[in-house]
């Protein structure tokens, strides 16, 4: 293979200059001549029947143009990525605090807000359902016609009873992980208007414009071609903008008023209304032989999906698929339940079920290694999956498995190799507290399915244009959420067209001008869009050989279909391709104050070949920050279905003082045969292993196993005091 000129290097991001100048127009920045401000009347209760909605006082507020309720939804008053069980505007019942009951559109935001306060809704308040176990009982009041179990699954491989009988070590623990907010810096926002061709256009912040288009058209009863959706840039998403947020509400206002409209959610409204990371309880029993071979994994996984389905089913599927980590286990039994409650509502979030499962299985792995007095990394290496092995849900791993390579690389790394020294060292400012300072090093490994998995349409179409001046334009409908994908696309296009990077332009996420490249989720875009770019480039080069470039240039389109596993175990289950990673974390605990500091993290990531190196490292470091947040700070709190912390004063995010300077990202480039230049994806793997690596480091430091996240200073103190007794 000839040397690569652009792929694998460190170019400047295509959008960096516009962003540092403050010139890039985000969805919340868009303003249109004559636009109306839209505000939402949200439910006053986590669970209630709506008796009546009186909008007369709101409509009378000066400047208010319309107040819309369920009767004003012309099409199907329902949406949802997988199951359309969520009303655009509720008419008879509300199931969580974020449910929309009415919309107000006014000449000013102040008038719209005043009118919101004057919409009178009479409710018959119902008892909120807050406990998933109780919600599963047959006599529990049903939140949806099909009952409260959205999805369940049972998978078995071998016989766990036999496995446990043979085991020298059996570890049983119950884990609890919290609801997590994506906390993208830009809240959900957008504008809507009729464009010149009469299409109802929504410029917003979603992660898949073609699906948004379908969801809007269905709710408004419009043909698809009458709806246009764009979403090239937004201020972060991480899965939280995958489901519909503001899009249908905006479209509805423009549909009724024929005027442009604008919406920007306040932070409180954002946290209350959008999907979250599923809170989950996970019961695990795992066994290993005296010689350190994993013999059995039994688990029961219960995820609280909240009020509506969104992607709760597929998230549970991935939780089950990844329940045994990247390990070869002869006997597995997993039961999973995704359950409706009135606790907000959950959906896609970086890791997509793997995040939760990884916390549990990697804690179990550590406990077993301890019980066997084995090195935790060696224990993992000895049990790791290889190509040709049968995975936990009993299907064959048919593509390259990079798990072992990441574990071995971690073992060679500075942090693990010289962990004794790191653990003895004391930082300057903790020296005076020396007797109370404890340090620990922890590891965690994981795998993460790439793409949507079996049974779901998963393809990427792109258009490549070569213009007479030698410039190349890539058109793809995926969104630039911050991950740097557009830069990676441009690098791949430059490489395969043999042009300098400066000659490549990327046009993104517009149902009118870009072909359907699929979702901007599931670690898939570099792989999927990249493959389509390579295919289109081949076709384009052939065209260029055949004919002259006219004034319009030459355009070609190609579609790449993601290869999938040859068995189907459920929606999106299983995957054919996985990314792999091993994280090592060093923590310092002050046993007098309970304070925890993460001092260093090393990330060994197999996302195949790295295309955009700076972006790869940046994502990894951001993943470390989110993993620290999940381990130590973040939890959406409820009191009987009512949100308690809806802004950053009480929902605590990691700051520059909480994330270590010492983050080392090491690419373990196991080149994927089907990947563009051997690339896969890394946007989820980079976060998932961080949290359990921290939990394992805490155990190493103070000898305490935390099974409930987040671990706060008071939890450390309580544990330390209990041990002293």
């Amino acid at each position, binding site marked *: 293979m000839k040397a690569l000129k652009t792929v694998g290097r460190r170019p400047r991001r295509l959008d*960096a200059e516009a962003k*540092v*100048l403050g010139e890039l127009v985000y969805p919340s920045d868009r303003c249109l001549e004559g636009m109306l401000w839209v505000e939402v009347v949200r439910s006053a209760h986590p669970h209630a029947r709506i008796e009546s909605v009186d909008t007369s006082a709101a409509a009378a507020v000066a400047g208010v143009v319309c107040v819309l309720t369920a009767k004003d939804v012309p099409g199907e008053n329902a949406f949802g990525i997988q199951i359309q069980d969520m009303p655009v505007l509720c008419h008879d019942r509300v199931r969580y605090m974020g449910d929309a009951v009415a919309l107000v559109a006014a000449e000013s935001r102040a008038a719209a807000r005043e009118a919101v306060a004057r919409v009178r809704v009479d409710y018959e308040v119902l008892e909120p359902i807050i406990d998933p176990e109780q919600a599963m009982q047959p006599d529990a009041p049903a939140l949806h016609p099909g009952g409260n179990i959205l999805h369940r699954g049972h998978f078995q491989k071998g016989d766990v009873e036999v496995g446990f009988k043979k085991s020298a070590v059996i570890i049983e623990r119950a884990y609890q992980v919290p609801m997590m907010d994506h906390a993208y810096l*830009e809240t959900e926002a957008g504008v809507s208007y009729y464009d010149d061709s009469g299409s109802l256009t929504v410029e917003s912040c979603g992660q898949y414009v073609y699906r948004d288009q379908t969801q809007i058209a269905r709710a408004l009863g419009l043909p698809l071609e009458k709806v246009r959706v764009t979403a090239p840039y937004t201020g972060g998403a991480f899965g939280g903008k995958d489901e519909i947020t503001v899009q249908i509400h905006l479209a509805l206002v423009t549909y009724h008023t024929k005027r442009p409209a604008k919406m920007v959610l306040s932070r409180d409204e954002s946290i209350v209304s959008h999907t979250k990371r599923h809170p989950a309880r996970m019961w695990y029993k795992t066994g290993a032989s005296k010689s350190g071979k994993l013999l059995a994994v039994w688990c029961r996984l219960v995820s609280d999906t909240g009020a509506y389905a969104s992607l709760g089913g597929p998230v549970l599927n991935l939780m089950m698929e990844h329940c045994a980590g990247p390990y070869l286990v002869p006997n597995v039994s997993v039961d999973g339940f995704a359950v409706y409650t009135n606790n907000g509502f959950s959906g896609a979030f970086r890791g997509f079920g793997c995040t939760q499962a990884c916390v549990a299985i990697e804690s179990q792995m550590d406990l077993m290694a301890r019980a066997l007095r084995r090195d935790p990394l060696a224990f993992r290496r000895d049990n790791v999956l290889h190509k040709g092995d049968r995975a936990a849900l009993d299907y064959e791993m048919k593509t390259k498995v990079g798990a072992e390579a990441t574990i071995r690389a971690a073992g060679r790394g500075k942090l693990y190799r010289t962990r004794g020294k790191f653990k003895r060292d004391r930082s300057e400012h903790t020296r005076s507290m020396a007797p109370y300072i404890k340090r620990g090093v922890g590891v965690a490994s994981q795998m993460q399915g790439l793409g949507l998995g079996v049974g779901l349409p998963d393809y990427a179409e792109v258009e490549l244009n070569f213009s007479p001046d030698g410039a190349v334009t890539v058109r793809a409908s995926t969104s630039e959420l*911050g*991950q740097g994908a557009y830069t990676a696309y441009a690098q791949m296009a430059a490489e395969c067209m043999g042009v300098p990077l400066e000659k490549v332009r990327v046009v993104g996420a517009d149902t009118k001008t870009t072909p359907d490249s699929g979702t901007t989720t599931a670690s898939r875009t570099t792989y999927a869009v990249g493959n389509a770019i390579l295919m289109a480039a081949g076709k384009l080069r052939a065209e260029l050989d055949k004919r002259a470039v006219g004034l319009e240039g030459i355009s070609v389109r190609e579609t790449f279909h993601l290869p999938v596993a040859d068995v189907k175990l459920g929606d999106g289950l299983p995957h054919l391709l996985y990314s792999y990673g091993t994280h090592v974390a060093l923590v310092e605990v002050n046993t007098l104050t309970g304070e925890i500091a993460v001092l260093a993290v090393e990330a060994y990531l197999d996302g195949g070949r790295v295309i955009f190196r700076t972006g790869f490292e940046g994502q990894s470091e*951001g993943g*470390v*920050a989110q993993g620290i947040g999940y381990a130590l700070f973040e939890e959406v709190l409820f009191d009987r279905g009512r949100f308690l912390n809806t802004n950053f004063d009480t929902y605590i995010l990691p700051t520059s003082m909480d*994330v270590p300077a010492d983050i080392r990202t090491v690419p373990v480039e196991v080149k994927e045969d089907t990947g563009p230049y051997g690339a896969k994806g890394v946007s989820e793997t980079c976060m998932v292993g961080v949290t359990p690596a921290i939990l394992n480091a805490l155990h190493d430091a103070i000898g305490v196993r935390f099974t409930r996240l987040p671990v706060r200073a008071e939890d450390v103190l309580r544990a330390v005091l209990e041990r002293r007794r």
Partner: protein
Amino acid sequence: MGPERNMKTEIAFTLNGFPVSLSVSAHKRLLDVLRYDLGLTGTKEGCGEGECGACTVIVDGRAVNACLYPAPEVDGRRVVTIEGLMDPENELSVIQKTFVQSGAIQCGFCSPGMIMATKALLDENPDPTDEEIRAALLGNLCRCTGYVQIVEAVRLAAEKLEKRR
């Protein structure tokens, strides 16, 4: 809504080196004046309560959260926003350049605020330690980067500015 809320005051201030005068209601936030009255949308809103720093601008040399700053308070003061940071030759300022160079930009929504906080820091303390940089950016949240490349950009900017002196 009481009458005092709608009461307007005339204010005049310097914005990015140019004089500006307008009439604002007493309770208006500086952020809304910048974004909606003056159309300068480079200053972002992330939380609306001074926790995230996305709306950081510089008033009389100090970094402030424009979402907490009453617009009438800028009367007679000098305000600098991200739009006013370019060099006189209309080139990216040193800080903007190093943010691009270090890969400190991902979604970019925190970037204008980060860059303004950096400018305020380096104007005050031209040679900060890494800890001082991290402490100065404590009020600016970033959800994408993990701060490493941002701190690197600030350090690099300090070095480059030092050489210019």
